[in-house]
């Protein structure tokens, strides 16, 4: 087995036994990036020098008999997390030359845990998109089929784990941006409860929905990454001031006796039959392991897309007001230009089409005369959507469903139809509106060999239940051990 084919647990074992060094492991992944990234384009920047320096430091830690679960483990970071002295673009032209003065909390915590950072990963501009086709630096490709999208917005981070060009990665999920690409790339992707991981230093898209989380091949690996990142941060007043449980320990709980709800509204009309079949089979596997399944109803599911595409653009239009050509990033200043000209020219030159569309939509929804009809109404329906989940969780411990209505579609297939593209997130975005934890894990493949994911959703701060169910599923199946031919 080559080093890039290892999963996190196998790499950990070899590192701890000193059968390989962190430097060797890191070099193997740097080589793998060189070999695969010309086709996959998962990375926007690779940082071999600092990665090898971090690896050497990890080797010293390990030689001293110290270190933890992530010491010496090579990883990638979605380019939405700011990284000290390392250019961070958020996939946008407007931040092409932005060199952050500090690390995002999630990144700082991974560094403190001894993880080795290989580079920054591709994404839809400002995390707005479902395919990475909105990246100003060109799309990523799905390692299982280079014609296909990897999903988005954290497409580079998902594709990289699938391609074996990192052992884990971190992304962000505002409406499905971790779970949907994880599903399309056949890897594990987890969105924790809103507030579980600090958003400090995460370039904001929609602040009431954004949440950071891990990608890896295994649920056990994702649990370790979450462990390192989670917990209160005084720099983010919306991070939860709560103890972080031992996620690795929770994996052993299994699913025996667990009550799992299957929402009838999530097997929607127009759902790909192979997706439905694969997910039904996965549900049967969990039943075979001793879980009890019951049908539940989330009656306001049908309204979630409309609610999301009011709230997320509204928050984005406000967050993106900071890109004004004054403090950092692109600045277009024609000779004799006024301040207003500078704003107009900078933003029009720096933002891509989808970002402009959402800023326009959000500005409209918040503007005088329309606020109550759109933003006000959406906030009320958001309450109903959240209540649906709270009601369901009175009867079940977790909810299981498909992640996306179809497997990965082809690059270019939906770029001209924003509404169709938005529908890719129809099964994931309610989870963000309600602030719940959710995971996507590999459940099988369609007849064309494209991966299909299973989604497990838990109550607020019940990451342990979600992880335990996911881990039990992986112990009983081998979908996550399959590798794309690259």
């Amino acid at each position, binding site marked *: 087995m080559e080093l890039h084919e290892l999963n996190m647990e196998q790499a950990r074992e070899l590192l701890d036994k000193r059968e390989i060094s962190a430097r060797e492991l890191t070099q193997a992944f740097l080589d793998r990036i060189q070999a695969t990234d010309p086709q996959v384009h998962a990375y926007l920047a690779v940082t071999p020098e600092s990665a090898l320096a971090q690896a050497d430091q990890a080797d010293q830690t390990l030689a001293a008999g110290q270190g933890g679960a992530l010491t010496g483990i090579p990883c990638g970071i979605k380019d939405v997390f700011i990284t000290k002295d390392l250019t961070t673009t958020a996939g946008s032209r407007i931040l092409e030359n932005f060199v952050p003065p500090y690390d995002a909390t999630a990144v700082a915590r991974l560094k403190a845990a001894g993880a080795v950072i290989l580079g920054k990963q591709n994404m839809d501009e400002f995390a707005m998109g479902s395919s990475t086709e909105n990246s100003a630096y060109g799309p990523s490709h799905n390692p299982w089929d280079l014609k296909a999208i990897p999903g988005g917005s954290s497409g580079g981070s998902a594709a990289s784990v699938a391609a074996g060009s990192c052992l884990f990665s971190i992304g962000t999920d505002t409406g499905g941006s971790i779970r949907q690409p994880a599903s399309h790339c056949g890897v594990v992707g987890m969105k924790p409860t809103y507030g579980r991981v600090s958003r400090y230093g995460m370039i904001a898209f929609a602040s009431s929905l954004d949440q950071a989380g891990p990608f890896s091949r295994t649920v056990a690996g994702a649990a370790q990454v979450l462990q390192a990142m989670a917990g209160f941060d005084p720099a983010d*007043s919306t991070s939860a001031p709560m103890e972080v449980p031992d996620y690795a320990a929770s994996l052993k709980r299994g699913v025996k006796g667990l009550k799992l709800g299957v929402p009838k509204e999530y097997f929607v009309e127009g759902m790909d039959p192979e997706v439905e079949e694969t997910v039904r089979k996965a549900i049967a596997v969990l039943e075979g392991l001793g879980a009890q399944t019951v049908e539940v109803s989330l009656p306001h599911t049908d309204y979630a897309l409309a609610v999301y595409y009011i709230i997320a653009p509204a928050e984005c239009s406000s967050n993106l007001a900071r890109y004004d050509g004054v403090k950092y990033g692109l600045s277009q200043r024609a000779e004799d230009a006024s*301040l207003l000209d500078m704003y107009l020219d900078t933003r029009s030159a720096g933002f891509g089409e989808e970002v402009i569309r959402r800023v326009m939509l959000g500005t*409209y929804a918040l503007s005088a005369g329309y606020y109550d009809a759109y933003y006000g109404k959406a906030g009320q329906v958001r309450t109903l959507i959240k209540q649906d989940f709270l009601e369901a969780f009175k009867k079940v411990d977790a909810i299981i469903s498909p992640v996306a209505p179809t497997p990965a579609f082809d690059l270019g297939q939906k770029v001209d139809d*924003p509404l169709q593209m938005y529908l890719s997130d129809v099964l994931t975005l309610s989870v963000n509106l309600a602030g719940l934890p959710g995971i996507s894990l590999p459940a099988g493949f369609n007849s064309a060999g494209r991966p299909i994911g299973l989604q497990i959703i838990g109550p607020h701060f019940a990451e342990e239940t979600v992880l335990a169910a996911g881990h039990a599923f992986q112990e009983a199946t081998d979908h996550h051990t399959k590798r794309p031919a690259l």
Partner: protein
Amino acid sequence: MKITRDEVAHVAQLARLRLVEEQVQRLTVQLNDILSSMEKLNQLDTSGVPSTNHALELTGAMREDEVRPSLKRERALANAPDSNGEAFVVPRVI
């Protein structure tokens, strides 16, 4: 028609975006499509339903108002398109 061409142009001005006519035309069509799909929210009677702006019941996070170290000025200005060493420089306003 949910939004007219002129309204799109006005919203662009509010959002500080300079759009060419072709973009205004295209966005008028697309925003109408998107806004029409949002019509369905009006099927729901939400009178008396409180609004959710945050998924979790968070209360204001307070701390002592004390001086703490912050970003050094030169670091804060390092990414500035234009600065005079003390402040960001922008085109003349008055």
